[in-house]
């Protein structure tokens, strides 16, 4: 589903991602973990096309997507959420969701003037889909609220909702559980599992080890921009290299 090969990304000589390679199989949940500054979010940004890589290759379903701009990668079936939720503040919750689907004929200005009946029909279907997504996230009561007025946790859910609206094959979740309460955390975990049941592939960055242990099929560990090791959650938990990466080499 996703293949990353020897990817290098430098910022002013600092190697944020260093010869990174890994592969993700279809319909799995993979956790990407590592200490702060390991280059996880940078890797996400490269895969999603938000950053250009300096070297290496990224394949999405066997298609090389190195030089694709972010919006084209999104159209190939990749959706991502942001570490710090990016709600479209002056737009309502339902608008935040209805924005997402691609190929809406009303996205063409001339259609919005001269082909109004078709646009209207599509909008009705789009609304249904967005409303169902809100039901899935249990946010229907906030439908017409401006996104600026949501709580942090609700914004997290909205991020996930936007990713769902794209009907993606591969979903990148950047710390879906950061800063949310345990109840919401469980709900997010359930949602991720439901996504897998629907046939989606998920790659997530997360610091909450309980979440990683509970839902991931495979865990990839990064450290200092490099690929360190991968395995099942249980293997990773007891791997001495991983402990070293997290806790440092010098032990008192």
């Amino acid at each position: 589903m996703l293949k990353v090969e020897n990817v290098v990304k430098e910022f002013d000589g600092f190697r944020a991602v260093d010869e990174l390679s890994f592969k993700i199989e279809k319909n799995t949940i993979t956790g990407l973990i590592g200490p702060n500054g390991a280059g996880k979010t940078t890797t996400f940004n490269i895969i999603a096309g938000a950053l250009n890589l300096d070297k290496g290759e990224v394949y999405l379903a066997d298609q090389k997507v190195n030089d694709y701009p972010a919006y084209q990668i999104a159209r190939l079936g990749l959706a991502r959420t942001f570490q710090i939720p990016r709600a479209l503040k002056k737009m309502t919750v339902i608008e935040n969701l209805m924005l997402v689907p691609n190929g809406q004929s009303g996205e063409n200005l001339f259609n919005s003037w001269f082909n109004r009946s078709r646009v209207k029909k599509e909008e009705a279907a789009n609304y249904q889909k967005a409303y169902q997504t809100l039901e899935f996230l249990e946010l229907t009561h906030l439908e017409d609220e401006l996104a600026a007025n949501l709580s942090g946790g609700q914004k997290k859910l909205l991020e996930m909702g936007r990713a769902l609206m794209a009907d993606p094959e591969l979903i990148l979740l950047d710390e879906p559980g950061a800063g949310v309460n345990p109840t919401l955390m469980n709900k997010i975990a359930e949602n991720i599992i439901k996504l897998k049941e629907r046939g989606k592939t998920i790659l997530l960055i997360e610091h909450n080890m309980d979440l990683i242990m509970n839902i991931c099929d495979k865990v990839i560990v990064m450290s200092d921009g490099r690929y360190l090791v991968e395995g099942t959650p249980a293997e990773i938990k007891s791997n001495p290299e991983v402990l070293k990466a997290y806790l440092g080499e010098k032990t008192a």
Partner: protein
Amino acid sequence: MTISGLLSYLIFFLTFAGIYAIMALGLNMQRGFAGLFNIGIAGFWAVGAYTAAILTKSPSPNHLGGFNTPIIISLLAAGIFSAILAFLIGIPTLRLREDYLGISTIGIAEIIRLIFTNEAWLSYGVRGISSIPKPFRDIFGQYYNLSFLALVLIVIAIFYYLSEKGIKSPWGRVLRAIREDEEVAKASGKNVFRYRMEALVFGAFMMGVGGALYAHFTGFISPEAFMPMQTTFIVWIMLIIGGSANNFGVLIGAVITWGIWTGTETITSMLPAQYVTQAAAFRVILIGVFLEIILLNMPDGLFPERKFKA
């Protein structure tokens, strides 16, 4: 002042306010909805005005012209030339951060003004183009100003309608999303560059048509008319006072701001002659104070952006 005198002044006032309202609708499309920082309205205005003047005039030895084009064509052509200018500016700047667009537009507006100042074969330089045709003057005779106001109102109605329809559609939703956070729009598969370009070009088209109406109404244009204060900044003030991203608010903002601008002119003209230069500066200060009051009390303008119904 007699009733009819007052009435004709009102018509005159509303026509000018209406032309400014067209500019403000154009700026609102660019700034209000798409978040584009265009501070070169003067340039689009000038291109529209000169296009209309050159196309509609009978031949003159002083400058390019003599095409005798009907006004409908000249209005469209003015919009199109202004739109082409926007397209050319947009190509290099819309991929960059918004301040680059701002710098480019203000720079290009000055360049355009200087071109019309120096290229005499085109525009007769600082002497300007005079006796620009006044459309339908023969038909309406003494009601000419009223008929011109009607024309301006028709143009406003068309642009208002197109603008509202566009902004309430999925197209407008993408625009507003880009304004709020372009990374989100990109991650949702939207071609940010394309939408920005469309908003810039659409807004510039309106400004070009507004410029053409200005040329026909005044009958005389020279580079002097396209200084930034009168043509760019006052439109921005209209947008800010009326309410960015609210087309109705922007129309009201145009009328109020133009009212203050011309009202103070009437008042300061009553001052003794030795204060005339100070008075001109004082008007700018008054507008500034008014802007401050609005910004402090209503940061989103008189009519803030409304919630859009899904």
